[in-house]
């Protein structure tokens, strides 16, 4: 309905959800905070059922939050891509292959390209590789106008195969001793908090600032919301999309290093299946698959919610395979709740 409001009669109801119109901006902000109550509820529940363990620093910060850090970075990456109106399934493969290649060049049994390379090269090599994957995805999607879904799906499979070839089905382990960077990434602390958590906090803060308060950030929403209008307004749509894929590749590579650091190894299957959790967290956090909608704060809440559910279920000694089923259910419930609270059809 495009009717302008002819406001007569009784005052507007107190609930902003009561109708379209003036309540929307407030509602959008409410949507951001929608996950706070369930997060608090899970914290309380975890504390009440396991008062000696749940909220202790050694469990909650050093285990739950720290283990969530790599996932959070990939969700950040995926959120950017979703906001700009595209898809990136290949991020989970980047989480595996970027550290695999970087580590392989340092400790692998190879002499190709002058290997072994010095240990410090791990970080730049992983990041450059992640960025290159983004460049390649962008090339196919922006230049050749291929569907992001299919391109990144093919990329996911290709990179996964490449990783198996390099790592050879085995696991490169005991990395902490050989590569100081990974040791630091896993064990360094600032103000008593693991460095991984700091990195996530800093990058999310930066992301929120960039998306909310810079020209480039706002153009992500414009491109995701209506690329034709963005183009007519002078936004270089292709460049913005391409850049977003590169940024996502970088973030996923960093997440991969973080994960390898925490495990002290690079397994052939590192990152496998992660993309489902990533999408779950992003969508629960209010990022629209249609593009142009959602906030990074919401996405971070989505990560926290998933992490807390997992923590609670683990402490309740639910077997790992059943946690998977619960994940699925949580996503469905979250979608239904989002539909009911915003009153908007999902597609």
């Amino acid at each position, binding site marked *: 309905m495009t*009717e302008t409001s002819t406001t007569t009669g009784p005052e507007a109801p107190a609930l902003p959800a009561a109708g*379209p*119109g003036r309540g929307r901006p407030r509602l959008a902000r409410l949507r951001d905070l929608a996950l706070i109550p369930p997060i608090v509820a899970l914290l309380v529940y975890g504390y009440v059922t396991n008062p000696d363990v749940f909220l202790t620093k050694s469990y909650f910060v050093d285990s739950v939050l720290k283990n969530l850090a790599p996932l959070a970075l990939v969700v950040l990456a995926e959120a950017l891509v979703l906001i700009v109106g595209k898809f990136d399934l290949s991020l989970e493969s980047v989480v595996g292959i970027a550290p695999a290649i970087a580590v392989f060049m340092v400790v692998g049994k190879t002499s190709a390209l002058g290997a072994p390379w010095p240990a410090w090269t791990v970080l730049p090599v992983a990041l450059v590789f992640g960025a290159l994957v983004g460049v390649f995805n962008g090339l196919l999607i922006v230049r050749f106008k291929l569907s992001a879904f299919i391109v990144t799906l093919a990329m996911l499979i290709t990179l996964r195969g490449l990783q198996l070839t390099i790592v050879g089905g085995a696991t490169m382990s005991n990395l902490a001793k050989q590569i100081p960077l990974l040791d630091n990434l896993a064990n360094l602390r600032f103000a008593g908090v693991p460095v991984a958590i700091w990195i996530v906090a800093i990058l999310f803060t930066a992301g929120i600032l960039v998306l909310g308060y810079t*020209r480039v950030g706002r153009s992500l929403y*414009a491109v995701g919301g*209506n690329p034709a209008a963005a183009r*007519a*307004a002078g936004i270089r749509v292709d460049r913005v999309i391409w850049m977003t894929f590169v940024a996502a590749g970088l973030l996923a590579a960093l997440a991969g290093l973080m994960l390898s650091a925490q495990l002290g190894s690079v397994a052939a299957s590192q990152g496998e299946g992660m993309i489902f959790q990533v999408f779950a967290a992003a969508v629960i956090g209010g990022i629209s698959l249609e593009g142009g909608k959602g906030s990074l704060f919401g996405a971070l809440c989505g990560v926290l919610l998933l992490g807390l559910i997992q923590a609670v279920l683990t402490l309740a000694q639910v077997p790992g395979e059943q946690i998977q089923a619960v994940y699925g259910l949580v996503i469905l419930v979250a979608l239904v709740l989002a539909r009911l609270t915003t009153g908007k059809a999902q597609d």
Partner: protein
Amino acid sequence: MGQQELVTAPVVEAIGVAKRFGPTVALADGNLSVSAGETHALVGRNGAGKSTLVAVLTGLLRPDAGEVRFAGRPAPPLADRAAWRSLVACVYQKPSVVADLSVAENLFLNRQPRGRFGLLSRPALRRQATELLESWAIPVNPELPAGQLTVEQRQLVEIAGALSLGARFVILDEPTAQLEGAAIARLFDRLRDLREQGVTFVFISHHLPEIYQICQRVTVFRDARHVLTAPVGELREEELVAAMVGEARGLVRVGADRPAVGSDADPVLELTGVGVPGFVEHVDLTVRRGEIVGVAGSAASGKRQLAEALAGLRPRTGEVRLAGRRVPAANVPAALRAGIGYLPGDRNVDGFVPGLSVAENATMTIAGNLGPAGTVLPGRRDAVARRLIADLEVHTAGPHQPVSELSGGNSQKVVMARALASDPRVLVLVAPTAGVDVRSKESLLGAVDRETRAQRGALLVSDELADLCVCDRVVVMAGGRVIAEHPRGWDEADLVAEIEGIGR
């Protein structure tokens, strides 16, 4: 049809229909009575309640109060879609056909004729579709994918589908909005034929002359209420506009007092041998400071593509100079920087981002100037947006309201704000008043008039006479070339004949 009207009840009758959405009253007192066999115009500004009434009449919305009757009987329950579809149909501006299916399949969607073993029979489908189209004399090939139809053919196919369901009452929601003159004439011929065969129409249009061409009676809505119903012959166009606007007010006549632009005024925009591959052959054109140049022509004339090329959205050849400086081709940011403010022809396609706020849409062209080092300071953005909202009289709850919630006229003003935000030297406007109500038309054209009086020039691409009246000079394009030029004071009939390619 004449004699029957007296005895039979109205085909459709809405009595005191009211509908509100939260605090918004969409319809307060909706009354409409349509007699069998007439084509009944429904007019009103955007937001007058027309679309809500249509939704109630087609059974898509349950009214809060009032009643709808078909041929004297109460309307079926909302859940009984089949019953509604056999009574009434609405052809919307947006296509409601499946583009990849054939016309025949679209006509018999979900009720395809069956052949042997209960499987669908394509020959039977083709035969029935052909029969249906022929019986209503609709010249469309049933084998064609629906996506390949012209707008006018698509509308006729949708009407045929409704008729085959038994409905003899069809609502046409701005059917001519996307059509050019010749297509409108063809559509009207078909509508007249259908009316003679007993089909009743409600015809919604912003284009008032059409109502006099094709309708017998007219109903006016204003501010969610029924204002009047009268035979069109008894209502002059000025009276009709007055009823829509609510106060005595003539047709849109903005800019009648524009000062003359001398031929010695500085040129701001100079086109030399500009071509757009496939659309425009060779155009030389100069817009001077303080001048509005209208560009008229049929849809195939290339006028819209010329404007898009000037905005940098299409590749072009030839030379474009702005205040003497060359503008690079096919580069939107460069065109913006050079000083071209662009208003696209279809706001829903590339005019605005619906989910984003009024402020963000209006300042999208100047996002680089709203803070240091690529930052966008919300305070500064809102301040700029508030100024633009005030200048253009945008009716909005505030700079943070999403544009998707605004009416057509107000969202168009936001797009105009986006074009003006960069303080351009030249405005390139395509159909700036398409699909907006009379008052928004005045305020949009008023803005063009005001903004071009001092420094700017404007190129106004349109074939709405009301738009062209504002222009200091009108050029007519056909086949990718400029074929005529008229100073202010042109003869309407001559101009229309040239636009439509009718020899006089």
